[in-house]
C-alpha cells in the first residue's frame, strides 16, 4: 500500500490534471462554433485530452525525481503534470504564447521541460528510443537515474516498440516502458488489431518482466511501478508495464466517437478513477478536509496558470526563426 503522503499527492495531481483538461475544453471551442474549424480560436490544432488516464501518470511519477527522464505521447498533459513540468509555462505553450515552454514553437504535442527531463512527441512509439538513450546515459555515468517511456496500446504494434525493448534488454539499461491501454487507437479497437490479449506478455520476447495492471487503479500502478523502478535503479534492467485505463473523451476534441458501442462512455464515466480514489482514501481514513484542500490547491494552480497564459503576450512572428539550431 502506498504511503500516506504519496497517496495524497496522487489524488491532488489527478485532480490537477483533470482540471487542466476541464479548462481546455471551453477554451478550445472558443471561435470554433457554430462551425467547427480546427484552425480557429485561442487553442488551434489537434487537442488530445487525457481524462481517465490519470492513474497511469501519478502511479508511476510518484516514484520519479527531477533527474529521471520521462518521454510521453501525443496525449501528454497528465504525464507532464505528474512529472512536475512547469504548469504556467505548459499552459502558455498550449496557448502559443511567448512564455510557453518553447515560446510557442511546439504546442500541446511537443512539450519539453529540461528542468525535470520531460519530453513528448506526436509520433507514435517515438519516445521509446530516446528513453533508452537517456537510460544508457545514466548507466554510463554511473548514476541511478531511470527513464520512463509512456506509450499507448496502439504503439505496441509499432516496430519502434519492439526494437526499443530488445535494445533496452540487450544493453540492460534502467528504463520502464509503460503502456496506457485505453482500448482504442483513434477508432480501431485494440482487440481488432493486436495479436495478443495482453501486451505485457510481449515482455517475454525481450527477456524482461512484464506486468499487467487491471482496474485503472492508482495504488496498483504505484505498487508495481515502484518495484520496477527500484529494480531499474539497482541496475537490474528494464521492465514493461501494461495498465488497463480508459479514455473518457474522444481521440481528439471534435471526435464524434461513433465507433464506440452504445453506453460505453457512460459506463466508463460511472467508473471515473478520480472520485473512486477519493472514496477509497476516505474509506482508508483520510480526512475529507485534507482531500478538499488538495483539490482546492490543485484547481487554484491550474486556474492561475490559465489566467497567466491567457494574459501573456504572443511571440513576435520573426521569433519563428530562433532555435532551429542550438
Amino acid at each position, binding site marked *: 500500500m502506498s504511503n500516506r503522503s504519496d497517496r495524497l499527492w496522487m489524488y491532488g495531481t489527478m485532480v490537477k490534471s483533470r482540471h487542466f483538461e476541464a479548462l481546455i475544453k471551453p477554451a478550445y471551442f472558443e471561435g470554433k462554433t457554430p462551425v467547427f474549424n480546427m484552425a480557429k480560436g485561442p487553442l488551434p490544432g489537434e487537442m488530445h485530452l487525457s481524462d481517465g488516464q490519470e492513474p497511469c501518470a501519478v502511479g508511476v511519477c510518484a516514484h520519479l525525481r527531477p533527474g529521471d*527522464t520521462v518521454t510521453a505521447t501525443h496525449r501528454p498533459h497528465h504525464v507532464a503534470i505528474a512529472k512536475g513540468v512547469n504548469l504556467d509555462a505548459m499552459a502558455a505553450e498550449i496557448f502559443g504564447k511567448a512564455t510557453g515552454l518553447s515560446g510557442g514553437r511546439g504546442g500541446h504535442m511537443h512539450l519539453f521541460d529540461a528542468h525535470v527531463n520531460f519530453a513528448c512527441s506526436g509520433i507514435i512509439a517515438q519516445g521509446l528510443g530516446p528513453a533508452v538513450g537517456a537510460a544508457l546515459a545514466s548507466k554510463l555515468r554511473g548514476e541511478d537515474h531511470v527513464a520512463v517511456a509512456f506509450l499507448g496500446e496502439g504503439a505496441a504494434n509499432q516496430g519502434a516498440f519492439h526494437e526499443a525493448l530488445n535494445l533496452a534488454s540487450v544493453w540492460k539499461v534502467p528504463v520502464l516502458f509503460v503502456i496506457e491501454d485505453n482500448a482504442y487507437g483513434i477508432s480501431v479497437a485494440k482487440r481488432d488489431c493486436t495479436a495478443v490479449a495482453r501486451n505485457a506478455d510481449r515482455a517475454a520476447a525481450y527477456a524482461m518482466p512484464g506486468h499487467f495492471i487491471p482496474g485503472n487503479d492508482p495504488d496498483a500502478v504505484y505498487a508495481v511501478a515502484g518495484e520496477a523502478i527500484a529494480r531499474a535503479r539497482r541496475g537490474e534492467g528494464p521492465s514493461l508495464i501494461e495498465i488497463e485505463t480508459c479514455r473518457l473523451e474522444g481521440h481528439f476534441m471534435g471526435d464524434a466517437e461513433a465507433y464506440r458501442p452504445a453506453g460505453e462512455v457512460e459506463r466508463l464515466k460511472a467508473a471515473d478513477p478520480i472520485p473512486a480514489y477519493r472514496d477509497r482514501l476516505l474509506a482508508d481514513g483520510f480526512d475529507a478536509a485534507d482531500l478538499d484542500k488538495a483539490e482546492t490547491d490543485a484547481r487554484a494552480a491550474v486556474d492561475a496558470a490559465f489566467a497567466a497564459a491567457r494574459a501573456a503576450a504572443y511571440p513576435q512572428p520573426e521569433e519563428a526563426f530562433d532555435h532551429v539550431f542550438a
Partner: protein
Amino acid sequence: MSSPETITAPRPARRLTIARAISEAIGQEMERDPAVLVMGEDIGKLGGVFGTTTGLLEKFGAERVRDTPISETAFIGAAVGLAASGMRPIAELMFVDFFGVCMDAIYNLAAKQSYFSGGQVTCPMVLMTSVGGGYGDAGQHSQTLYATFGHLPGLKVVIPSNAHDAKGLMLAAIRDPNPVIFMYHKALQGMGWLGTVQRSITDAPEGDYVVPLGKAAIAREGSDITLVGLGLSVHHALDAAARLEKQGHSAEVIDLRSIAPLDRETVRASVRKTGRLLAVDDDYMSYGVGAEIIASVCEAGIPLRAAPRRIAHPDIPVPFTPVMEHFVLPDADKIAAAALTILEP
C-alpha cells in the same frame, strides 16, 4: 581542399584515407571528451564496414564502442536521448539508403529537439553514413540523397572530399551542438575492396584541428568558369578543369564540404569573378544541390555570361549494370563537355 604543399609542418607527410581520418578523429575526440561514444552496426570488432571505427573497440572498450542490433529506429532514437542527456553520441548507419526505417528519429526527433524545446534541449549527435555508387551495387546501396537531408531544417549535412577535410570536419561535427549527418563517399573512402580516387588520400595533421561546418573551399583557382561540387564530384570537376586548361579555359573548382549550412557567399564570389556556373553532384537532379546553387547565384542578381547549368544523376533509380550506371553518373567527360557549351556557346 588541402594539398600536401599547403601543409608546412616540418614532418613527413602522411597518406591518410578518409576512413583512417574519420577513425582518427573519433578516437582523438573520445580521448578528449568522455561524453563521446560510438554505436552502430558492425562498428565494434569489424571496425565499421567502411573503416570509420577501426581500432576504437580495442582502445575504448565495449561500453563506449557499441555494436547495435539491426534496429535503426531504436539506436538512432537512443542517440537522440543520449544527446538530450548531455552525451555526444556518434551513430553509424552504413548506407544512406537504409535511412528509410528510421526517418522519424532523424527528421521528427533529432532535427526538432532544439526548436520544439525553445533551445532548452540540444541534440549534439553525429550520424555518419556512406553514400554513392559507381561500383555496381544498384539502387538500394548507391544513392547519395544529399538534398533529401539538406532539405530538412535542423540538420547539418557534411560531405568531405579528402582525408584532411574529413578529419577536421568530423572533429567539428562531434563538437557541434546540433545533429550532423556526416556523409562519406564510397569512391573516396579508401577501402581495399573498393576503388578509391587517389586524390582523396591526403596528408593531415596528427593533432587537433577543425574544418568549420558551412565553409566551402576553393579546390582550384580559375577565372573563366566556376565548377561547384561536393565529395566525389569535386574530383571529377578537378579532372575536367585540367582538360579545360589544355583547351585554354581556366576553371575554378569549389568544394562545398557541407550543404547545410551552405556557403552561398563563396559560390557567389567565384561566379562574380567568372560569370559562368556549372554545378555538379551525383544525387538525383530535380530539387537538388545544383538547383540550390544556381538559385543562390541567380537570386543574388549576379550577371552571367551564359545560362548556368547543372549535372547530376538523372531522375531514375541508380541502375545496376555498369553500362547503364556509368551512362547516368556524372564524370569528368560530362563536366568538361557541359563546361564547353557554357564557355563556347
